[in-house]
C-alpha cells in the first residue's frame, strides 16, 4: 500500500476545498434562483427571459455537479495516492469547474432574445478542459491497477 505523501495530501486538499466551496457557492445560487421564482421577478421569469432562466439553471446545475466532481477527485487521489497524479488532470478539472458554470452565469446577465451574452463563449473551452480532465483522470485510475 502506497503512503499518502504531504504533496499528494496538499494536491487532494486543493480539490476537496475547491469542490466543497464550489458546492456551497452554486447551491447559494440555487437558493437565489428559488427566491427569484418565489418573488416572481419578471427579469428572470418573463417569457422574454427564457434564455436567462435556462442559462442560470445550467450554471447552478453544472457548478454544483462540478463541485461534487472535485470532491470525488480529491477522494480518488487520497484513495490512489500512487497513481502518479499530475498537473494535467488537476488544472483541466479546475478550469472546467470555473469556466463552465461562470460562462453560463455571466452569459445570462445580458441576453439577446434567444441568444446568450458573449460570456457564454467561456463554456466551450470549459467543456473541453473538463473532458480532457475526466479522460486523464480515468487513465490514471485505470493505470493505478486498482
Amino acid at each position, binding site marked *: 500500500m502506497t503512503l499518502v505523501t504531504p504533496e499528494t495530501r496538499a494536491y487532494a486538499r486543493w480539490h476537496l476545498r475547491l469542490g466543497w466551496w464550489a458546492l456551497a457557492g452554486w447551491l447559494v445560487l440555487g437558493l437565489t434562483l428559488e427566491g427569484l421564482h418565489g418573488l416572481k421577478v419578471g427579469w428572470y421569469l418573463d*417569457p422574454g427571459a427564457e434564455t436567462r432562466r435556462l442559462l442560470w439553471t445550467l450554471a447552478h446545475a453544472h457548478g454544483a455537479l462540478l463541485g461534487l466532481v472535485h470532491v470525488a477527485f480529491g477522494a480518488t487521489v487520497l484513495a490512489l495516492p500512487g497513481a502518479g497524479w499530475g498537473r494535467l488532470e488537476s488544472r483541466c478539472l479546475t478550469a472546467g469547474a470555473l469556466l463552465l458554470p461562470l460562462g453560463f452565469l455571466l452569459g445570462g446577465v445580458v441576453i439577446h432574445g434567444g*441568444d446568450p451574452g458573449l460570456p457564454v463563449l467561456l463554456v466551450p473551452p470549459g467543456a473541453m478542459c473538463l473532458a480532457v480532465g475526466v479522460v486523464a483522470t480515468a487513465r490514471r485510475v485505470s493505470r493505478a491497477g486498482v
Partner: protein
Amino acid sequence: MSGWQEVALLVLAAIGVAAPLLARVRRPRARVAATTLTLVGLALLVQHLPRRAGRPTAPDDRPRVALRDDAWTGSDACKACHPGEHASWHASYHRSMTQRPSGESVLAAWDDVTLTAPDGARWRLTRDGERFLAAVDDAPPREVVLVTGSHHMQVFWVADGRPRLLAQVPFVWLIDDARWVPRNAAFVRPPELAGAPPSETGRWNLVCLRCHTTDPQPLPLSPGLDAFDTRVGELGISCESCHGPGAAHVAANRDPARRYALHLGGGADPTIVNPARLDALRSSQVCGQCHSISCEPSQAEWQAWAAQGFQFRPGDDLAATRALLQAPLDPEADPLAATILRMDPHFVEDRFWPDGEVRVTGRELSALVRSPCFQGGELSCVTCHALHKAPDDPRPTRTWADDQLKPAAMGDAACASCHQTTAREGEAHTRHPAGARVGCMDCHMPHTTYGLLKAIRSHEVTSPDVGAARAARRPNACNLCHLDRSLGWAADALAGWTGRPAPALDDDEREVAAGPLWLLTGDAGQRALVAWASGWEKARAASGTWWLPPYLEHVVRGDPYDAVRIIAWRGLRDLPEARGAAIDPVAAPAARAAALAPVRERWPAAATDRGEDDGARVLAPGGRLDRARFQALSERRDDRRVDLIE
C-alpha cells in the same frame, strides 16, 4: 405519428408484455383466460387513447393549413430566437382570430344548447369531447371546423358539404355577456334583415380569411364560387403577416457569428422586415393590409388574389397592389369607384360619415392618413401601439392585449412627445381642471367609430367642432362626455375658447341635453355610439347616471336595431333601477316591455328624490320626466337605413 401507428405500437407492446406471461401458463383454460384478458385490456386501452384536439372527421371539408412555399416558415420557427415576442404574440387576440375548435378555443356554451333563429329554425349545439356539433332542425349534425374571434365575440363555421366551403352557425357568442345572440343582432344592420337567415356561406373562404389568417389563398374551384381549395399559411394573424416570409431570415441566422454581429452592431437585419424600423407610411401600411378600407384595384387583380393570395409583403407600398379608398367616391372620374357603387350603392355610407371620416372599426389606416399628425408628422400605428408587450411594461398581459397600446399611449405622453408646448400649457389648453381626468384623446380622438357592439376612438386626429360634427350627423367630442349638456352649451363653450362663431342650432339642440337628444332622435349609428357612451366611465363621471334610466329603457324597449338595444342594455343593467331585472334585449317586444317594468317603476321615485330641475335633460321641475316632450322627440327618431360594415 398517426393513430394507426399509435395503435400498432400499443399492440406490439402488449404482445411483448403478454408473451412471457402466457409462456408460463401451462393449463389450456388458463391460457385462454389470460389471452382473453389481454385482448380485453388491449381493447379498453385503445378505446381510451387520448383523442387529439381538432382531429378532422372530414379532412377535405375545411381549409388547408399549409405553408405556401419554402419562403415561409411559420410562427413556431420564431420562438427559439424571439421567446418574449413569441409569447406576447401568442397571448394576443391577433393569434386567436381564427382557431380550430377545442375546449380551450371555444368560449361559448355548447353543452346541449338549443337556439331558435329569427327565421324559426331550431339549432341544437352539442359536444362530443373536443368535437363541437351543430344541427339545424332534424338535419344530421355538422361538426364545427373553425372558430373566428376570441376577444369580444365568437363566430362558428361548419363545413357546408361542398369542397372546403364553410357555412356560418347563425348565432354569435358575446364573450363579455356570456350569451348567444342571432348573428344579425351583433351588428348594426337594418331591422328588415333581422328575421332573414344570414347568408354567410362562402364568406369565410373569400372575405374573412383575408384578415383572420396568415397568407391566405381562397383558391375557388368554380366560377360560381361554391367549391374551393382554400389554403392558409396559419390560422390567425401570425409573425409573417407583419414581418414577411421568414424562411431566409431563419436560414441566415443559423450562423451564430451573424447573429452576434447583429446583436452587438445594433443594425437592421435585411433578411426580415421590422415594421418599427420602417418609415411611418410603410410601417402603418403593414397594419393597413387589414386595418383599412381597401380592395383590389380591378376585377383581374381580384381574381389574381383569389388564385394566388396577396402580392403585398410588409415593407412594400400597399397602394401598389391595393386601392386604398376614401370618401367620397367619384364614379364619374374613377372607374373603380363606379364599379364599387354599382355592386354596392351603399358602400360609402356604410363605412364613412358624410364628411368622409371613417365610422366603422378595423379600418384605422384610412382614418389615420387623414390626420394632420400623420400627414405632417411622424405619427404611425406603432407610435401608440406595441404589437409585442415590452419587457418593462408592468401591466398584465391581458390588459396589454386589449388594445395593444404602449403604456405611454394610455395617457397623454404619446401626444406630448411632439406637442410639447401644448402639453406645457395644461389647463390653458384643455379648458378642463387638472383633476378632471380628461386626456388629449378624449377631445382629439373621440369615440365616434363603431364596431363590435361598442364605440372606439376615431383614428382621425381632429379638434372638437360642434358644427362640423353636426353637419356630418356625428356625435361631437364634447357631448360624448357631457351627455347631460346640450349641443348649444358645447358650441358656446368652444366659441368662447377659440373665438370662432358658434354654429346655428335649432331649439332642441340648444335646450335638450345631447345624450337624450341623440338617443331619442338620432339615427341607429348615433344611438349606438351614445348608448355606449352612457356606460363609459368618463362620461358617467362628467354627466352622472341618475338621469339615464328612462332613455336607456326607452331604447332597450323599442329600438328597432338589435345591436343598439344590446348596447343600451349594457349601459342600463348596472344602474340601480335595473338591478335584478332579467332583461333580454333581443327578446320579443312584449317580453322586453315586461322585463323593463321595474326600471320604469323605480326611476321616477329615484329622480324625484334628487329634486333635480334641469330642462336640458328633458326633465320638468321636481325631477319628473316631461313625457310630452319625450314623446315628441322620440317620434322624430331618424329611421334612415344604417348598415355598418365592420
